[in-house]
């Protein structure tokens, strides 16, 4: 029998994370849906020495890197799209505090697919023949790198082809638009690599912007790309991807995207950001106050909000779902 899996954010981090673990998040693109609140709680609980698997950098990895919580990271893309370079991640890489292993945006989901299928390797027709293959931040003296994307022989044609190492992260904290209390999830917007990630990770915690009754999942079963049987826990947290966007729910907070990235460019700015936006912001009301209630309403009036219309009748009110 499926059972309810709602727990608090703090409990999820206490239960499923530890220092030195392989932690996957960054569930959509740099400015899109990501479980950024999970990263904020990782800092409140002082997690360290994380090995981050982020298909794309987001403000979550930018923050964790700026705060010194990550020592190794693997990414397909490490900027913030039109918002520019990710200053916190950049500072950590340039100083040598964080080893960033570069892949491409197709290489990462293919590695997750390989992990999900428990394959020994995945054939690579991209990321080969370039310095993504030849240079390894995890093995800097191995040049040209032999172990990062080694060459293998295609048994059918006899030609040489690259081999990607599959990924099996210890935990994936995955942002979803809607979840039910059992752990079924609907994603609005591109799922990017959340489907493969949810199958590759050893454990999955969902961070949902809103909760819905299971009847919603029964109405739209084709849209439930993450089913409850692979989910450990569900955390409900509105505006979980803020300052990034969540299609159907809220727009990117352009002002805070810029201000946050500027703060993360220095040690002092990072300390101030943690003091002002992370320490003590431990419950949902305090979090929404910190964003600013007017801002919350403004961001909610998104041109994408019609995407939520088919699901509104099943939305659960906060008091019905307190863990």
């Amino acid at each position, binding site marked *: 029998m499926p059972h309810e899996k709602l727990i608090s954010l703090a409990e999820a981090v206490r239960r499923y994370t530890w220092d030195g673990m392989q932690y996957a998040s960054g569930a959509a693109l740099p400015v899109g849906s990501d479980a950024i609140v999970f990263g904020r709680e990782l800092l409140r609980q002082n997690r360290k020495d994380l090995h981050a698997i982020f298909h794309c950098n987001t403000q979550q990895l930018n923050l964790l890197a700026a705060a010194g919580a990550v020592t190794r990271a693997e990414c397909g893309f490490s900027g913030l*799209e039109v918002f520019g370079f990710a200053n916190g991640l950049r500072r950590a890489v340039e100083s040598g505090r964080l080893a960033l292993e570069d892949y491409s945006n197709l290489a990462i*989901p*293919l590695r997750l697919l390989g992990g999900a299928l428990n394959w020994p390797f995945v054939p690579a027709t991209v990321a*080969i023949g370039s310095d*993504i293959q030849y240079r390894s931040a995890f093995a*800097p003296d191995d040049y040209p790198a032999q172990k990062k994307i080694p060459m293998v022989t295609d048994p059918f044609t006899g030609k040489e082809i690259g081999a990607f190492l599959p990924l099996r992260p210890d935990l994936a904290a995955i942002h979803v638009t809607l979840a039910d209390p059992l752990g079924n999830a609907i994603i609005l917007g591109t799922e990017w690599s959340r489907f493969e990630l949810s199958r590759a990770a050893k454990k999955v915690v969902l961070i949902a912007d809103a909760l819905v009754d299971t009847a919603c999942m029964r109405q739209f079963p084709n849209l439930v790309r993450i089913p409850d049987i692979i989910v450990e826990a569900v955390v409900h947290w509105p505006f979980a991807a803020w300052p990034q966007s969540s299609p159907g729910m809220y727009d990117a907070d352009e002002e805070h995207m810029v201000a946050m990235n500027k703060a993360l460019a220095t040690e002092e700015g990072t300390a101030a950001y943690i003091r002002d936006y992370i320490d003590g912001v431990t419950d949902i009301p305090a979090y929404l106050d910190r964003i600013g209630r007017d801002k919350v309403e403004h961001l909610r009036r998104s041109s994408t909000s019609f995407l939520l219309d088919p699901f509104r009748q099943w939305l659960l009110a906060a008091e019905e779902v307190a863990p």
Partner: protein
Amino acid sequence: MSGLDYTRQEMMAIATGREIRDGELAIFGVGLSMLAGFFAQAHHAPNVRTMTEGGVYGATPVGGLPWGIECNRISSNATSFTNAIDALGFLVASGRCDVGIIGAAEVDKFGNVNTTGIWEGPIGPTFRPPKTRLTGAGGANDIACGAKRTIIMVSHERKRFSEKVAYISSPGYLEGGDARSRHGFNGGGPAAIVTTLGILRPHPETREFELASWFSFSNIEEIKANTGWDLKLAAGAHEAPEPTADELAALRRVDETGALRKKG
């Protein structure tokens, strides 16, 4: 001169958009390359089949340059949302995509692109952190490997046009000639480097990029002076046509927030 007032960045976007043909399957990276691609759709390629690497199909930007692929400016009128393996894998790395537009921080004479970092001098045998870390490859590597042809769009400054890039993030013709064929890529490589000063195209055999066109406001000497290798003139090199009033109007409908008008 046509008497029209436009910026060098607008000329670059229009020249890039002219490379896109009606009906093609096309992928545009986020940023200015997206404006160039959607300009083509708004102007001469209404049936271009567009996608972004997020697996966002059927969408056009609303309200200006999208901040990112999941931004509300590109997520509010899509007809399909899928995923990265679908867009970058099934439709691009497979060799199915006709054309992709990518950006570059640094490009070399064989069309290899660096978007990973800036080092002082060659990296050497030990991989060390860059002096300035850039964004990494993203989907550009997958497009450069898999699309039938790519268009590289880059601001023409000497520091960005090197004999050899410090780090190949996205492969062009590698060491030139038929070097690409030694690898298992499904795509054909860069067809043009379109810049704020002109258009470079690869020599059919050596694959070295040569000056094919300059713009009405630039000239051969200026372009050579802003290129870090000994730039040759391609056979049949000529001045590119200026933007027409229709082209400029179409571009500005797409570039609603004037991202391309900010710099001269």
